[in-house]
Structures are given as C-alpha cells and as structure tokens.
C-alpha cells in the first residue's frame, strides 16, 4: 500500500476501495465495505438522542490522545451528558493529500479502541480527500446515536441551592494541546483529559433521582458552558473561585501567556447540577471513577430568575463571568 494519501484515495475508485478495506473496515471490524457506507439497524427503543461534532484538532496526536480518540469520546460525551446511552457512531473523514497512511491507521485504531471501550458500534463512514493545503492533516466528523432507557434523562428543572459539580480539573485538554503545538516554546507535563465519560455519568443518572443537567465544558471552557446554562434556564449560578480544581501546571502556563483556565477547553470533564441534598452522593460516585477523582463541588444555583454566572473571589467579592469574547491570544499586558 502507498505511504501517503493521494487525491485518488478519495475519488471513489480503486484506491478509495482499497483504503476503506485495508484501513477502516479492518479496524472497525465490518466484513464488507458496503456496510461502511450506509447501515440498516433495528434499535431497542424509540426514544433516541442524536448529536454531531466535527473534530479539527492540531496536532492530531497529543499527550493523552489523538483526534481519533477525541472524535469518539467527544460524541460519546455529548450523548452521555444528555443522559442517553451511546450505541452507534458514524464517522466522516476529510483527509489532506499527503497525509501519512500510518498516521491514519493509528487514528482509526484509536477510534476503534475507544469505541470498543465505550461500547459503541461504528456503523457508517465516509472518506474524502482534499488537495494539499486544503486541510490540516485530517478532520473527523462523528455523529452519535444513543438511547434513553429507564427514564434517565436529566430533568432540566432547577431550584435554589442546587449544587454545581465539576468532574475534575479544568483546562487540561486545551493547555496540553496548546503546549504540544510547540509554537509558544512552553512545555507542560500534563495529558489532555480526553476520555469517554458515559459509564460514570450514566451511573450518576442511575443512582440519583433528579439530576438537573449535565454538560461537557469543551470549547469555551467551564465559564462559557455555565453562562449558557445560566442563560438558557434563567439561573443565577455562583462559583467559588478557590474550589475550582486547576492543575498547577495549567495555572503556570496560563500565567505565562495571560490565559484564564475558566475559558480553556476540556475533553473529559462534565458539569453536573444536582439537588443540594444529593451532592455528597454524586461526589461519592464520581470519586470512584478515575475520570472523576478530582471532582469538586464548585458552586450553587442561587436564583432562578436571571440568567447570570458569578464568580466569588477569595476576598468575597463577586464578579460576573461572560462567554469567552473572541479568541484568547498570548499577551504581555
């Protein structure tokens, strides 16, 4: 087989056929490639959740994962935070001419591994190849289908006093990837948190009656995700700055370049808002999982009228948190 992807790998002819057979079908374990293009299936229940995401990370391999692992975990998590049990995944690849086929294999193998681990089946796929300079390596779209069993769906009903929990340290993914890119010349000895959270989160949903909401604070970070929740459901949420778990290394890198961990992307974390009386039980469950070992109660819902997110500093002052406004750029002032 060739070493690098050529445009012909995407033109639907003999090379596409071989690529699909030798890379995808093999890794995803289908026995004919017709299955790879479209899939007929019978699902166990009629209540489903559907989500889609495209993954465009640079570099495609980073400490703690790869775009392949991310593409599976990211979509699995979007289903899991909605309370659904992830069952099926489709994947669409856009590959740059010249991309190393061995890298593609490694990525696809990461996908297969993560899919196996989380119990999802990859049921359909597609590959397109674009000219050199028309993509940055490889982009992957995954679309996930999950099912709702046993009324696991978060209620989306909130009351004052509800506890806000984060399942672990924030900013690990964004900082690990930024450092790995090497452009800033800063090395940070941490891994991306990239992980599938379905087992842990569905366990919470099983054990706790009235989970209010779960969300994965990916792009835009913890603050942006909580602003969205606050606005969507007209909640006043107050976070306690000193209780938010941030790794020292993440803090260090952020200090150096003037970034704020509250706005850095996570790929293996969930925000859970739960009734105050269940918060200890939820913490107990989260702490049982490796993905939840740094979980912390970081704030509470203090009102259900205005949509706003506040941060209480160690001095006791409160300040308003808004969405990430424009890109974060390394700065000197």
């Amino acid at each position: 087989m060739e070493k690098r992807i050529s445009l012909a790998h995407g033109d639907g002819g003999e090379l596409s056929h071989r690529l699909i057979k030798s890379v995808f079908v093999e890794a995803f374990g289908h026995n004919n490639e017709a299955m790879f293009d479209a899939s007929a299936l019978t699902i166990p229940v009629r209540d489903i959740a559907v989500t889609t995401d495209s993954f465009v990370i640079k570099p495609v391999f980073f400490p703690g994962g790869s775009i392949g692992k991310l593409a599976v975990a990211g979509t699995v998590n979007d289903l899991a935070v909605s309370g659904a049990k992830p069952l099926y995944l489709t994947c669409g690849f856009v590959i740059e001419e010249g991309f190393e086929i061995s890298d593609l294999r490694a990525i696809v193998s990461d996908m297969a591994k993560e899919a196996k681990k989380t119990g999802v089946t990859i049921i359909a796929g597609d590959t397109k190849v674009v000219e050199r300079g028309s993509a940055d390596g490889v982009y992957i779209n995954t679309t996930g289908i999950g099912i709702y069993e046993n009324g696991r769906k978060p209620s989306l009903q909130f009351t004052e006093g509800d506890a806000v929990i984060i399942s672990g340290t924030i900013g690990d993914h964004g900082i690990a990837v930024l450092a790995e890119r090497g452009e800033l010349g800063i090395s940070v000895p941490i891994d991306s948190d990239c992980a599938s959270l379905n087992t842990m989160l569905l366990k919470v949903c099983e054990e706790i009656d009235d989970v209010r909401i779960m969300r994965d604070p990916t792009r835009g970070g913890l603050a942006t995700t909580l602003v969205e929740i606050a606005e969507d459901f007209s909640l006043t949420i107050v976070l306690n700055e000193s209780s938010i778990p941030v790794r020292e290394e993440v803090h260090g890198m952020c200090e150096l370049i003037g970034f704020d961990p509250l706005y850095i992307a996570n790929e293996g974390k969930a925000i859970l808002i739960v009734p105050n009386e269940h918060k200890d039980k939820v913490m107990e469950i989260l702490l049982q999982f490796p993905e939840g070992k740094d979980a912390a109660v970081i704030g509470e819902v203090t009102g259900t009228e205005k949509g706003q997110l506040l941060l209480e500093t160690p001095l006791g002052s409160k300040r308003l948190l808004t969405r990430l406004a424009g890109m974060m750029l390394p700065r000197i002032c």
Partner: protein
Amino acid sequence: MQELLKQSSNPEILKPLLQAVKEKAAEFISLYGRKPAFMEVCGSHTMALAKSGVKQALREDVSLISGPGCPVCVTDQHSIDSMIALAEGDGRIICTFGDMMKVPGSRQSLMDAKINGKDIRVVYSPVDSIRIAEENPGKEVIFLGIGFETTIPILAILVEEAYKKGLGNFSIWMTTKLVEPILRHLLNCGDVMLDGFLLPGHVSIVLGEEAYSFLPEEYNIGGVISGFEPAELLSGIYKLLDIAITKDTRIINDHPSVVTKSGNVVAKQLMEKYFSLCDEAWRGIGSIPSSGLSIRREFDQFDAKKKFKVDPGEPKKTKCRCGEVIRGLINPTDCVLFGKACNPMKPVGPCMVSAEGSCAAYYQYMRECN
C-alpha cells in the same frame, strides 16, 4: 519559595488584610471627610485589582482611579491605523503581541486584516520574530513594538540580534511609551486630584525605585511600588493610605523582592544604546514631547517607520472617551458607549480591547451583578 509566593493569594491572609485596609481608609475618611483617591498607574494593576475583587471590595472605602499604563490603550488612533496599513502591504509578515490583534483601527483591526488573508502572527516572545525573519528571507518581517519600560529593553534585544545577524528583512515599528513623562503631564494638567500613586511593580524592575523621586520632590505626591497579587495590592494600598494620613510624602518600595533602588542596569544600558527619546502621541492627550523612544539613527535599517511609507489617512472619529479614561478623568461607565456599542466583542476603543484596559476590566469584572 513557592510556598512564600502562594501566600500572596492566601485567603487567610487576604481577608484580615482587607480589613486592615478598610480600617485605615476609615481613618482617612474620618480625618478628611472624603474617600482617599489613588491612581493605579499600571493597567496590570487595574486588571489585578478588578479580577481579584480588591477593587469591588474597597468600593466604599477607596477611590481607585485607573491610570495611563496600558500600552494598548494609550496608543493613539493614527498609530493604530498606521500599523494596520502597514500590515496591508504585500510580502510582509507582521509579528505582534496578542494584545494588539483586536484593537479597532478606523477601518479594521489587525485581526480583520488577518481574516482577510494578511500574514499576521502573534508571538509570545519577541525574539521569535527574528527566527521568522530568518526563515522567510523573501519577506519583510515587521515587529510591532509597543510597551512601557518593561518591554522596551526586550525590543532593544531585537535590534541587537537583528544587527548581529545582519538581517535585511527585519524591522520594528516603534510606538513605545515612557512612565515619567505621562505622570508629569497628568500632574501638570492638574485635572485629577490624587492622594498618591500605586506604582507599577514590573516597570519598576527596570526603572528602579529612584525613578519616582520626582513625585514627592517636585509634586509633593507619594507613591507605593506594588506587586500584582491580591495581598501585594492590599499592602500597597495600605501603605498609600498611611502616607496620605501621615502626610509623610515619599516613595515606598513595597515590592523589594524584585525592585531595586536603581533598577536593571543592563536593561537601561541596552535601551540607551539602541533608542533615543522622541515625541509620542498619546490617545486623547496628543503629542507629549520626549515621551517615547525610537530607534537611533545608526540603526535606521531596523526602523520600520523609516523603511516603509504608510499613509492611513485621517482617523475616523468615534465617541470613545478612552483619552479621558486613561487620564483618570472619567470612569468607563461614564462613556455612553460602554457596554452597549462598545463591548469586548466589538470594542470601540483600545481600553475595551486590552485585558488590562480600564473599560475591559470594568466590563469583565466590575459590572454590577444584577
């Protein structure tokens, strides 16, 4: 040492320290029947005060006025337009600190120019731009040199490196600012009443404690050189209150772990070697004589202002009151555009762009929690 450093944001220290400041402020108020007014000269102080909640916590006790020490905010519109016009030329790579990217010019920002396809690169360390120039011999690489005395010595390193390497395609567009001339200008104008200055810890690393002696000596006003951590801020304000109450007008170096009496000699020598005084235009103030540094004649080849002709035309007039904000004459909230037409997503003036701009700090950290 790491443990020592952490103390500066230790809540167990902060809360009583805040209490001490509040008590001291009450003493001032009972003495003079008004709130004490201090100006934090430095934009990083503005941001640190707001982000840590010190400013909010002292709202009733001390009037903290943001000063002119945000290099982005004090850059005048024509300068900004010139840098953007520069970026629009073909065959150029513009290197800049991230701070400048979103500053609105009359027609567009550097970010817009980048979106429109211009090659504009954000660097963390200015010396990266030297590497970029070496890697792109066919292009002109221009570094946008903004900053006060903390940053200027680093720009001097750039000239030195470019000179040593004989780089023909590298230059700096200098639009730097100096602390002393702007403080003198503010005091000379006399339109802000102040009880003292919270002086910039990092600039002072270079300048040294002695650089501020003109304040008590010539203007009879005191100042405290302060760090940026919450405890350092509170301590600095505490000492400012002390000066104001005792009328023992002087400069206190409250950041002695990094600031010496005479500053960093090497840095000052490098500045002297490569740069000379020039008039600089300050936003909303106009030109102040000898308030900036430009590249010395001998190193003309690295002076982008000599190398490239740009004519950005007349700046567009806006209702932005940054000029008054940085002089401490008004609060950001006094600007009619604040929070409405002007916000961090669509800033009208540079004070809303820079993280340490007064307007941005107000918007991000000080808005009423309603």
